[in-house]
């Protein structure tokens, strides 16, 4: 590890050479402010209520991560196929007393479709992004992006909207026809960055010992390769040479992070390939990621922080048996691993049964009594089958919200007293025809 002075020089040197006008990584913030002054857009600012924590990025600049009053921007793949992923995150927020809004009034970012098929265009992508940002803004909750691809896409859209006047005006026109304005949040924040800054509170609530667990971390491409300057780097992790997220939370919990030869490789999701050319995805995942993680890193579990990566690495292993790969390496997102370590119910909260790789072995190593938990869950399913009302992590919504995006206050009671009463009243006019 370097001494502080060398480190500071290094970071400043990096920032000076990479950032600034005309350099590789332009500073968008100043330009965003200028545009707001000219009335071209509205900046959704982070406020004290959001309890933001500062982190550093690739070029040594600061990024602020809001931890409270968050608007969940959900991931299609997570909600569809890995529901324990968002469920673990919301459970963590409940445990740490953070308020949030999770609502039906969010569209997909549409980026998976774009990357897979090319059937969209920058104006459409930017308009979808801006529409979701505006929704978060009008609910007074700061957007938290669940998917790595949404995160990468939204970072690019921010840059596009700030730098390209033509696109910006087109998007603003489309939004106005929807009754919305052009809003850009002050920061584009990935949920794994929230987990990262919540480390002290998370570790304080640890229930199971993970000291003996060896993990291999897979860094999602779209987290750090798109708009690379906007990702969390920390000199205490990998000497600041690899993103700190999500490795840092794994280490903070006490588990080991082992290196392997293909650390930088993509998982093989391919966006298109995972659906339409799966021989590629499963070959790549098994040969280039799973095998080194098992044979070099000797991992008990692979941790990653993106939808596509969990999907690819998890779903590609079963067929590997046809080629003599019988690894069965459990793949978990950072939040699922964290939730398990903090004592969340493996099936009711972490929903491990949606994974095709077997998580039970890992849970045994962690000292989790999954057998009882499984029984409990079976009973719960029976009750649900017979018409019982399901448990929910927050008060479920009224039926009107199946149709209309009304304004709504925070889900969790706000200890500061800024409750629903002080928010703008639900505006039925928002239910206007599109």
């Amino acid at each position, binding site marked *: 590890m370097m001494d502080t002075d060398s480190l500071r020089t290094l970071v400043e040197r990096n920032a000076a050479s990479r950032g600034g006008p005309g350099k590789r990584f332009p500073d968008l913030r100043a330009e965003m402010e200028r545009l707001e002054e000219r009335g071209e857009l*509205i900046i959704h600012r982070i406020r004290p209520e959001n309890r933001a924590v500062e982190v550093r990025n690739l070029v040594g600049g600061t990024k602020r991560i809001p931890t409270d009053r968050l608007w969940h921007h*959900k991931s299609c*793949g997570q909600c*569809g*196929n890995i*529901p324990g992923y968002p469920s673990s995150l*919301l459970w963590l927020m409940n445990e740490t007393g953070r308020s949030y809004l*999770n*609502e039906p*009034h969010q*569209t*997909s970012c*549409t980026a998976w*479709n774009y990357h897979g*098929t*090319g*059937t*969209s*265009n920058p*104006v*459409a992508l930017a308009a*979808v992004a801006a529409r979701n940002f505006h929704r978060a803004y*009008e609910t007074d909750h700061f957007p938290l992006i669940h998917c790595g691809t949404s995160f990468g896409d939204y970072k690019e859209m921010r840059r596009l909207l700030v730098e390209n006047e033509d696109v910006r005006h087109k998007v603003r026109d*489309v939004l106005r*026809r*929807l*009754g919305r*304005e052009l809003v850009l949040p002050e920061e584009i924040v990935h949920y794994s960055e929230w987990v990262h800054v919540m480390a002290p509170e998370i570790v304080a609530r640890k229930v199971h010992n993970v000291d003996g667990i060896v993990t291999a971390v897979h860094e999602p*491409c*779209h987290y750090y*390769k*798109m708009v690379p300057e906007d990702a969390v780097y920390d000199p205490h992790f990998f000497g600041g040479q690899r993103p700190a997220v999500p490795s840092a939370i794994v280490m903070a919990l006490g588990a080991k992070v082992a290196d392997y030869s293909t650390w*930088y*490789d*993509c998982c093989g999701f*391919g*966006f*298109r390939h995972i*659906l339409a050319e799966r021989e590629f995805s499963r*070959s*790549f995942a098994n040969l280039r990621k799973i095998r080194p993680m098992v044979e070099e890193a000797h991992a008990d579990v692979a941790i990653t922080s993106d939808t596509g990566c969990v999907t690819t690495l998890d*779903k590609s292993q*079963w*067929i590997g048996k046809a080629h003599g790969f019988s690894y069965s390496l459990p793949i978990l997102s950072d939040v699922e691993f964290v939730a398990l370590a903090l004592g969340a119910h493996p099936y009711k*909260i972490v*929903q491990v049964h949606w994974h*095709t790789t077997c998580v039970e072995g890992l849970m045994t190593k962690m000292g989790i009594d999954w057998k009882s938990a499984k029984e409990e869950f079976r009973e*719960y*399913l029976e009750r649900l*089958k017979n018409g019982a009302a399901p*448990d929910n992590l927050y008060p*479920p919504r009224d039926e*009107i919200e*199946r*149709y209309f*995006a009304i304004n709504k206050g925070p889900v969790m009671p706000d200890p500061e007293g800024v409750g629903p009463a002080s928010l703008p009243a639900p505006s039925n*006019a*928002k239910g206007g*025809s*599109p």
Partner: protein
Amino acid sequence: MSIVARLPRPPSDRVEEESPEPPALLIRGRHAPSPEERSLSEEILTEFRADPRSSEFVLGCLNCGECTSGCPAARFYDFSPREMVQVAIHADAPTLWDAMQEKIWACCQCYSCTMRCRFGNDIGGIISVMRELSVRHGLDSARKTLAPFGRTFRLLTTVGTQISPDMIQPEFFRDWGPAATRLDETWGVPLEVLRKAIPIDVLRTTRAAWEVSVQTSLELFRIYEETGVLDMLRGVDPDLVEMLVDLVDERRGEFEEAKRRFQLPKAEPAGPSSSSPG
């Protein structure tokens, strides 16, 4: 024509001939455009050059190969990001046409190349531009690519998410194994009940990743209409688009009905939002 007639004639005999074909980078590629496709390939080249992103994303190339070093597709396909950049810089119509058949679809869109390019190119980005062009022009290769994504498109335009739990059908995802496709059998309850057991209310559906409100899904459709995405799709699959428009009309009907049920006022005229919190 007999071979004798094709032999070059001595200069004194030469008469005014048509000007010869300009030399092509791709002399006889795997996917050279047929004579009928020739003019389309030239139109595509012109559009490609005219797209402002072409000059923004491709600045030049040192041929250093660093982009390819991290490329997952380069290991498995006859493809490399370096090749794509070279095509973007030098291509004539047949070469670009060739690249747009198979090569651009090999790309995994991981952006390892873009992150590493020493010259500052956005290689993943320029490949996306080529893909957009191929869809816009309804090329066969685009049609083939889009075929499995018809469902995704239907989901996006009607319910607003790209995935739905009920699309993980055993016949289509056999290689993911029974744990993925037969979860209901493993637990002895229907998929709907398994979704009910998720402690997040909007996830309790099998037809979408999460339940998107009707207003929101209509907003997404409107965006697709106004920004030309539906038109792009029409070029490749007009029947699909017709079906989508019908489905969305049904949604609109549902929406209007709900307005009546909840006694909401008529639509406000279009204009800036009046409810931005301070």
